[in-house]
């Protein structure tokens, strides 16, 4: 009985392999996208309380350009935040962390991997629309100059 459907197995495996990794024409991949928890806080007292987010949100991921031409990440879009900006953290010799917005986006050279990781490139999510809890996930679209939009699932992790 099962043998009848065995031919579907490669297809299913292929589809499951795509989970969590966004691809566009196979040239640019966004792998292992993750975020950190952000809690909501009730601010103010006596009925004047207002809901505020504890911190901005963040997205880290690994961008892989398998193509033979340089591409550029232009912006990131997600429904969980009002605004998403691409930033880079850099440390100077005195241990001072400088946060540098990247309004021109980030170049992803041909056949190279650009990590978005703590202490480096990251996507800053401002005015989050909801709290992010460990185990939650949400969608984000990384828009590239040449490869176009690549949508991935971002996992909220405690790391």
């Amino acid at each position, binding site marked *: 009985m099962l043998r009848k459907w065995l031919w579907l197995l490669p297809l299913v495996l292929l589809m499951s392999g795509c989970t969590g990794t966004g691809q566009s024409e196979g040239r640019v991949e966004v792998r292992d996208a993750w975020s*950190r928890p952000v809690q909501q806080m009730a*601010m103010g007292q006596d009925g004047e309380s207002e809901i505020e987010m504890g*911190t901005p*949100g963040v997205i880290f991921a690994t961008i892989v350009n398998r193509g033979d031409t340089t591409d550029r990440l232009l912006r990131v879009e997600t429904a969980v935040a009002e605004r998403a900006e691409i930033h880079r*953290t850099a440390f100077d010799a005195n*241990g*001072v962390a400088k*946060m540098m*917005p990247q309004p021109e986006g980030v170049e992803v050279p041909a056949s190279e991997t650009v990590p978005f990781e703590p202490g480096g490139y990251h996507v800053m999510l*401002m005015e989050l629309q909801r709290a992010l809890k460990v185990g939650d996930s949400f969608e984000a679209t990384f828009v590239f100059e040449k490869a176009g939009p690549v949508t991935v699932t971002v996992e909220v992790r405690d790391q």
Partner: protein
Amino acid sequence: MQHRNRLLGGGIVLGVLILGVWFVIQQMRPPVLNGTAFDPGRTPPDVVMESTRGGEMRLSDLRGKYVVLFFGYTHCPDVCPTTMLKLRNMMAQLSPEEAEQVQVVFVSVDPERDTIERLKGFVESYNPSFIGLRGTPDALAQLATPLGIYYADQSQGETILFDHTASVLLIDPDGNLKLLWAPTLTAEEMAADLKALLR
């Protein structure tokens, strides 16, 4: 035969003695630490700030404990959450007895936006034992500047951004500056330093 036994016995006694002396020397030697040591006798300025535990607090109120001091702001997207997670993981590696002797303190470099409620929610989300301090801009400068802590508001429009020192400071139970932990150190390395100092 008796002579041989005596020689063997003497050898064992000598071996035990050498091991004992080596052990004592190891115990007396200052531990090799991952952090960078401060010149002895430097103390942080004793400045009054508002505490997330309620009321006012000075660092000298925490004498008797190792104080782990970090300066940041709650709207920080990357460095502060990364460091706070590291400090949480560092505390998790200490035994309850060791953790009892360590106090993590987060000082806001953005007292204007970081209300005490906001600060409390932020620090306690990492570990309920963590304390947040919020001072006036003058009090903040009085504390941070002599410690070599730099901070500058670089906010652009609605995007709140600060440049700030990402190193963590360790103050000993007598209130002296003990170590500077660079941002590259791991939770394991910082916990190892605390364990060595608490031994």
